[in-house]
């Protein structure tokens, strides 16, 4: 019993670190643009499909696949930013969000045209058996995921608090008008943040695809929903909140799956979000980002 609890907690932390990465990307975009990019997940899916296509046609190796996924996600993200978010910076947030949803449909159809089967194998990061520590088992991929989340958080923190660009990003998040008046190029911050967020998403997508050892067109919706859920749970627009929200969602899902099964697991996650929103808990109504 204790061993099961410990194993679930461990699995939840690993699962949660992938959600945390997705939520970080989502939060960066939301924090800076104050807009929700529904195409965040589909852009990741686009990167994973580009990599799968390269793997099928040229037998590209893992490192190259990771690079292609990242590049694909950034490219798709740039397309979304140019079309949906750049033309009307101060326009309606709803219009921008629905426009990003429209591009989601494009990515999904493009993916099914390029690779029409429902499911494609994605090469695993590590083919050996899982590590065993007494009663606990650990997958190497999960460790890599956790490590990646920690490294990305550390780098992001360093960037935000130790570089000039980081100061500009935080200024735009807190006071966009004042930032502009102080001579910060707000459009440049937007574009670079969008690219950064897409790259983090691409990394998460590559790790998720190689952990699951498969890609399907559903990866787009899955990434958007999990990222959005984790971001909302941690408080909209807060980076530490995004990490905590991701880990909380992972833990909730791992335990929920064990005790109640997969359908109740998802039900529980949505119920928690609904109740927290309805109760207007303090951390979900404040809007600090840094």
């Amino acid at each position, binding site marked *: 019993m204790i061993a099961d609890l410990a194993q679930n907690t461990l699995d939840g932390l690993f699962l949660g670190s992938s959600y945390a990465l997705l939520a970080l990307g989502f939060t960066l975009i939301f924090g800076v643009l104050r807009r929700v990019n529904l195409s965040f997940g589909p852009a990741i899916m686009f990167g994973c499909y580009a990599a799968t296509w390269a793997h099928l046609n040229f037998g590209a190796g893992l490192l190259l696949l990771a690079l292609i996924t990242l590049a694909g996600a950034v490219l798709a993200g740039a397309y979304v930013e140019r079309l949906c978010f750049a033309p*009307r910076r101060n326009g309606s947030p709803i*219009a921008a969000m629905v426009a990003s949803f429209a591009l989601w449909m494009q990515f999904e*159809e493009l993916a099914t045209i390029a690779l029409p089967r429902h499911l494609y194998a994605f090469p695993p990061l590590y083919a050996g058996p899982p590590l065993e520590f007494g009663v606990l088992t650990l997958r190497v991929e999960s460790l890599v995921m956790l490590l990646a989340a920690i490294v990305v958080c550390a780098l992001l923190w360093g960037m935000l608090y130790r570089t000039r660009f980081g100061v500009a990003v935080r200024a735009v998040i807190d006071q966009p008008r004042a930032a502009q008046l102080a001579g910060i190029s707000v459009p440049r911050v937007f574009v670079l943040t969008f690219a950064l967020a897409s790259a983090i998403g691409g990394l998460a997508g590559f790790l998720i695809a190689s952990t699951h050892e498969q890609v399907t067109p559903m990866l787009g919706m899955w990434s958007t929903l999990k990222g959005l859920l984790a971001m909302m749970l941690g408080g909209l627009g807060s980076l530490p909140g995004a990490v905590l929200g991701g880990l909380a969602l992972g833990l909730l899902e791992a335990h929920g799956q064990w005790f109640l099964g997969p359908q109740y697991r998802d039900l529980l996650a*949505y*119920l928690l979000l*609904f109740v927290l*929103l309805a109760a*207007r808990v303090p951390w979900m109504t404040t809007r600090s980002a840094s």
Partner: protein
Amino acid sequence: MDDYTIGVLTNVGLISFLALSAYLLLIAGEMSFGQQAFFGVGAYAGGILTAIYGWPLPLAALGAMALGALAQFLVGLPTLRLRGLYFAMATLAAAEMARILFELFHFQRLVDGEAVGPDGTQGFRGIRWVFEQGIEPLEYLGIVYALLVVALALFLLVERSRLGATLRGVGEDPELAAALGVDVNRVKLGVAAAAGALAALGGVLYAHHNTYVEPRNFDIMLGVHSLAYALIGGLGTAFGPLLGVLVDIGALEGSRIFHGYRMIVFGGLVALLLVWRPRGLLDERMVQWLKQRFS
């Protein structure tokens, strides 16, 4: 008309109810990601009432609408005070919960020696009232559009009335509306109930058109589509959402020109349109201009 055309036109009519439901909330200032849930409630409730309890469709439709209104009223009660994205996410969470509950919902009874009713992820087969009554597809198309005309007439009536002005006032500036003595919360709850009933009516008609529904039909894609229809068609008049549905299902799916590339064409079109006209083709200014032109 051949069967294919009738099918496409019927679909345009059915989805229009859902788009109108999203539109109603949008003009009252709330963006819902969850209207598909009430469409689903209508489909399941209406199907159960006709297929298992043998109710006639009109009565079952009324029952389903009441249930849809109640469901959205109950969801709205704790959430309508939330603004913008918070409300959108709360409705999304509610709708996904509803979809999972449909997956867990088993309610089968023997009707003429055959098990009928919702069977979890296997879906709900045998909603055959329309077929058993000998209603032809063309007649059903007529029924759907007659109801749509009634709904539209109601919308136009409301938009011309004081209530319509109140709705738009609440949507544009709730604080100002409240200062003018409008009970914003009550108005929004009323809007939520009406939107739920409208979506449920679409759902009942959808279930009886297809004779089969499954939980997957009511996922987030349907909800965001209906929102997109309302938004691209325009927020200036109730004809807006209809135009949105017509452009997507009618022109792109119906014409079969863009076969296999429909989503790429439609997606690009919608994105460009929304950059160019953030409140849709038939927005308030366009409607004003048209009114001056033709009156």
